[in-house]
């Protein structure tokens, strides 16, 4: 089952390697991983999407907690949460395709953020599913590049992950 794990990590050199190394050493799967400093520059927040049985997820969270650089973590998928992913797509946009692309972007509530005679760069935010749906809705031949940020997530309501 797909899980989103949020981790507060000491913002130290090599801390990210410890997390990534743990996953490869123990043959756990990483679907996506994003990391950036928080409002406190000494702390990074890392969001990791992984999968596995309940037993494997339990081991993953225990092993992550064991890393000395990990301050705290939360399995967001255990409760109500919001997840978002940012995607930038560069598409060939010439002739009649331009109008059709514009419509598709509007349907998905995306934005065209760069335009030339032949190119659109589209920005789209949403769940990973929504981004998948958008990419699937595009004419494959038109896609030049796809960049995805990986998932960021946060718990709904009062529940929070903080020090």
């Amino acid at each position, binding site marked *: 089952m797909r899980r989103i794990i949020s981790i507060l990590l000491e913002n130290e050199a090599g801390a990210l390697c410890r997390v990534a190394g743990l996953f490869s050493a123990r043959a756990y799967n990483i679907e996506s991983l994003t990391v950036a400093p928080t409002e406190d520059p000494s702390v990074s927040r890392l969001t990791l999407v992984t999968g596995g049985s309940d037993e494997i997820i339990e*081991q993953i969270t225990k*092993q992550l*907690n064991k890393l*000395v650089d990990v301050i705290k973590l939360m399995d967001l998928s255990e409760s109500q949460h919001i997840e978002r992913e940012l995607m930038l797509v560069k598409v060939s946009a010439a002739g009649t395709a331009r109008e059709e692309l514009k419509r598709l972007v509007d349907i998905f509530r995306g934005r065209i953020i760069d335009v030339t005679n032949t190119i659109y760069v589209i920005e789209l935010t949403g769940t990973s599913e929504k981004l998948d749906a958008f990419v699937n809705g595009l004419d494959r031949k038109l896609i030049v590049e796809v960049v995805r940020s990986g998932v960021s997530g946060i718990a709904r309501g009062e529940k929070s992950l903080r020090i």
Partner: protein
Amino acid sequence: MLEVTEKFRGAEIFVRCLKDEGVDYIFGYPGGAVLHIYDALYKQDAVKHILVRHEQGATHAADGYARATGRPGVVLVTSGPGVTNTITGIATAYMDSIPLVVFTGQVPTHLIGNDAFQEVDAIGITRPCVKHNFLVENVNDLASVIKKAFYIATTGRPGPVVVDIPKDVTADLAEYHYPETVEMRSYKPVTKGHPGQIKKAVALILAAKRAMIYTGGGIVLDNAAGELIEFTRHLGYPITNTLMGLGAYPGTDPQFIGMLGMHGTYEANMAMHHCDVLIAIGARFDDRVTGDLKHFCPEAKIVHIDVDPSSIAKNVPVAVPIVGGAGSVLRDLIKALHESGAKPDQGVLAAWWGQIKEWQSVDCLRYDRTTEVIKPQYVIEQLYELSGGDAYITSDVGQHQMWAAQFYKFDQPRRWINSGGLGTMGFGLPAALGVQVAFPDHLVACITGEASLVMCIQELSTCLQYGLPIKIINLNNRYMGMVRQWQEFFYDRRYSHSYMDALPDFIKLAESFGHVGMRIEKTGSVRPALKEALGMKERLVLMDFITDQTENVYPMIAAGKGHHEMHLSPERELA
């Protein structure tokens, strides 16, 4: 008021930190990146340095020192090959949760990443086999990093910590202040067990009809042998120890029914298979212990006590998990048992012991005592008798290790020193060196085989330099015995590269290093030779016992089988 603050070079700060940490010995090997530190070591005598002959030997020696004393082992090596040579030793300590602090030299900060001479990414290369590691980028951080390294290595589930120190940091100046305490928001090991879980465990433990206590290295590491003895005697339940846990409960006590696992006793494994409540403390359900998980303790509800939450329910589902230090949780359990006033049903317990006695009557460790050719088991039995069971025993890895575990009855913790998790051949001699440094007047014996022994044989030189009178018991069967045994059983006797041809003359080898060598070829000579060797209190004696080449370790559970599927030797196979 004018405040005068003295500044010291990083190298001096380093040595002062070790002194303030109470480090008496470090094991190391000099090189370019650590020359400032070696110069600082030269100018003092509080911290004594043992010069090994290979950095792997330094890590194993520090590891042996740590296992025997309970204090962290300290290693100092140079950059590049100095670091890579320590990897086997660090991984060995990591697998067995041994507290080591390994200081590695690094090229100067401005050269890091430049493929400089003797540069290696020490942090990257050690990361998967350390509890934590640090690169010291500024001399002002040096003391606090060293304090943290010792704190992390020795608390919670212990383990090795690497501190990588660039050469310029050891030359830079800073004020010296060694922190007294450490506070880390990201590292707070749990020691005390949850009271609710303790209560649940007591109820389950007292209701057991066929209980079994199974303990591992965690008892030894937490110095909880006293608590374990009190707990076990109070209940009257049978107890087994893992390979790492031997000595935590007295091996000669009637409640002890032997080691469990692949080469454990028949009675211990059968009792595991048939128990209804399993009390696991400081053990991690390793595959060599459990055998096939599908058949593991099929009737048992499991109480699992461990300081490392990730060890709990990793391999086996657990009814009552308790995260906490073995000693602390055992004290709480003992208190709760006393408060409850209840005792296990004595009639039911007697019936369980009746069953165990029946399994014990199989006498699973019996071997042929009539041969003229030396049986390895006999050598260990004789060593046990002549040493009064009071020696520090280190071992390497293979058949001799299993025989040592089966036939030397350890009554005290920290006397049995072996590489259980990683299974590192070459561990025994340098580990013995470290133990003998810690206990110069005590008998330290290294039970080894000719294949393992030569892997770190260079440390004989270190033993001469520091006058370490280790007794090396070389069970020489001219084979990598355990490999040969598996090839005999599972590869139709195709002995692929397991025969040790062109062995050295071990007598001459010992003599060339300035030690005493002996060769013993007949059963009748074993005891007198051992007596003679143990009498040489000032000398290292390498005893080369020419043993039966075809002897196998029994009993045995083949890989992937259950505890109830044990084999005895072929002539006495169970129905």
